[in-house]
């Protein structure tokens, strides 16, 4: 949790009826019982769950799935289905909880596939995992021009930019985005992580970004560590080994 933000309510501080609904929701979630998620989410809402409580319920589930993914016990299908369950439940909760008031995000991130590439799978998985990990996510789309990315950073006040690169033809867009951020005076306040099949660690320095991730969960670890440092040491370059 970011040190600058007060934490959302912990599960232990919830009323018993909500605690019970959360436990049931988490059981269904960890069993990948996607058909049971709408009902489990309705039960959460009936028990008085708001958006912040919902994130409190989801974060440990996503962490457990992430740990199993990192350990090689789970693979992409589990990540994808977990992401979809989160999206289904999140839509229901947001429809009832009209605003985000009371919900503390640990960071804001703008995500896109840069100009030159239309792949969206990895980006979309990362978007859901980031949201389920407590980030406010602006998923801009695919084949996005650098100037649009910079506008999104300005508009949202995001401090993190995630770029998904499945083709080497995106490199020029990444470079141009970095240049535009520098020109606008936003580079020092924006950390950039790249990921995808066309990326490797050596590109951190060559493209002028801050980190590269080999998979979605490593990427979540990177942006969480950045969120935890918000406001300090923002200029430090990191090539995550």
């Amino acid at each position, binding site marked *: 949790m970011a040190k600058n933000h007060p934490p959302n309510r912990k599960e232990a501080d919830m009323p018993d009826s909500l605690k019970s609904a959360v436990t049931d929701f988490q059981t269904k979630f960890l069993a990948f019982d996607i058909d049971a998620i709408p009902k489990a989410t309705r039960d959460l809402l009936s028990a008085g769950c708001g958006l912040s409580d919902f994130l409190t319920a989801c974060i440990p589930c996503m962490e457990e799935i992430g740990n199993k993914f990192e350990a090689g016990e789970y693979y992409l299908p589990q990540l994808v289905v977990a992401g979809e369950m989160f999206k289904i439940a999140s839509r229901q909760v947001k429809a009832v909880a009209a605003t985000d008031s009371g919900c503390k995000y640990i960071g804001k991130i703008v995500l896109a596939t840069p100009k030159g590439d*239309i792949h969206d*799978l990895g980006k979309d998985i990362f978007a859901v995992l980031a949201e389920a990990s407590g980030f406010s996510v602006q998923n801009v789309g695919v084949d996005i021009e650098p100037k649009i990315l910079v506008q999104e950073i300005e508009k949202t006040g995001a401090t993190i930019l995630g770029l998904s690169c499945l083709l080497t033809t995106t490199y020029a867009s990444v470079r141009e985005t970095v240049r535009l951020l520098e020109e606008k005076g936003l580079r020092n306040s924006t950390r950039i992580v790249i990921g995808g*099949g066309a990326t490797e660690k050596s590109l951190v320095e060559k493209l002028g970004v801050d980190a590269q991730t080999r998979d979605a969960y490593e990427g979540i670890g990177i942006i969480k560590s950045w969120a935890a440092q918000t406001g300090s040491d923002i200029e430090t370059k990191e090539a995550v080994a």
Partner: protein
Amino acid sequence: MNSAKRIYPKDSMTAQQRFDAAVRLETPDRVPLSLMLYYFAPVYAGVSMHQYMADPGTYASVMKKVWEEVGPWDIYYNIHPVSRLIYSYVLMMRTLWPGYELAEDEMAKVEEITYMNPEDYDSVIDGPELLGDTLFRLRMLGRFCKEAEGAGIASLATRMIIHLARQVRNWRKDFKWWREQGAAIQIGCQAEMPFDTFSQARNVLNFSMDLMRTPEKIGQASTRLAASYATFSVTVARLMGVPTVQCYCHRSSNSFISPKQFEELALPGLEVVVNRIVDAGMTPILHCDGDWLKNLPSMRRLPAGKVVLQLDGLTDIFRAKEVIGDRMCIFGDVPAALLAEGTPTEVGEYCHRLIEEVGKGGGFILAAGCEVPPNAKAECVRAMVDAVKKYGYYGERVSPPVAA
């Protein structure tokens, strides 16, 4: 000049002999080189991607220029699509082309759309084995391919035969020039494997849920189509006069599925395909994108000295050599990022390491990981050519490579 022509003066084998020896896991005179530079070539030559893809004459002149100025090399990577219909049939994805759906200078792209329903697994399982894969593809084509929209199976099959005949005629004419230069031809037929086609056709989310809900149907359906896939591929490869089948396995890696799912659901069909192609006297080239390392132990049951394993840079190729190098010829894997952003020295050092470690004792073909990207530096591509000339001859000792 003919295919007996040597590529470089010091060669003692032809390119075809070198390729065949590598497949048999023997030690050729030197490491063979395949430059898979389809998308790099027009950028290098300064020709629009649309003109290059739409006009066979432009394509031929561009490739000739690259051969003369960047090459020569051993193995010609022939993926130029003469017919959009045939291209969709083999890839089984909606494709966006420069000059059609995209601007003239853009690179062709694939768009993932969902065109297969859960009931289609049952139709495949309950359908005929004979021509099963062909009928499945024809049935699906109208759902995602503009050229096939609204067509019945019979009329589509007729159009396919006409387009295929045109494609084969064009290719055989093209191959003549390459063989005169001494090059071996890489691909007799190419197509996405059934398991991987299902993953693309259902989309990743639906397919992930299918893997959890009805995994046995995926396994049964992909195995059901395997024999027909092999029959079609071998027939086309015979028509092309090139005894290889490039089998695309874009969705079977551990980047998508677990080793257990691979072994239980994808490998049985893959094994049928490989054995049938081998029984026909041909070589399957398994185009394995993603990380395959944990799948390799179960793939050891495929026939030894008959199969090429093509890696794209995401599998640890050095570990792959240890795990399966005594069973399969390994093909790869200079990363696209290195060719686009590296220096000729870096490329040369990486090729040197590949040649010394993965090429040790033979059974190795040097190539780019997946493909040479369109924005590769020409001097980096030339560094691959220089590396096989400098380090690739098996009879010579050179200084050990720089450790990565």
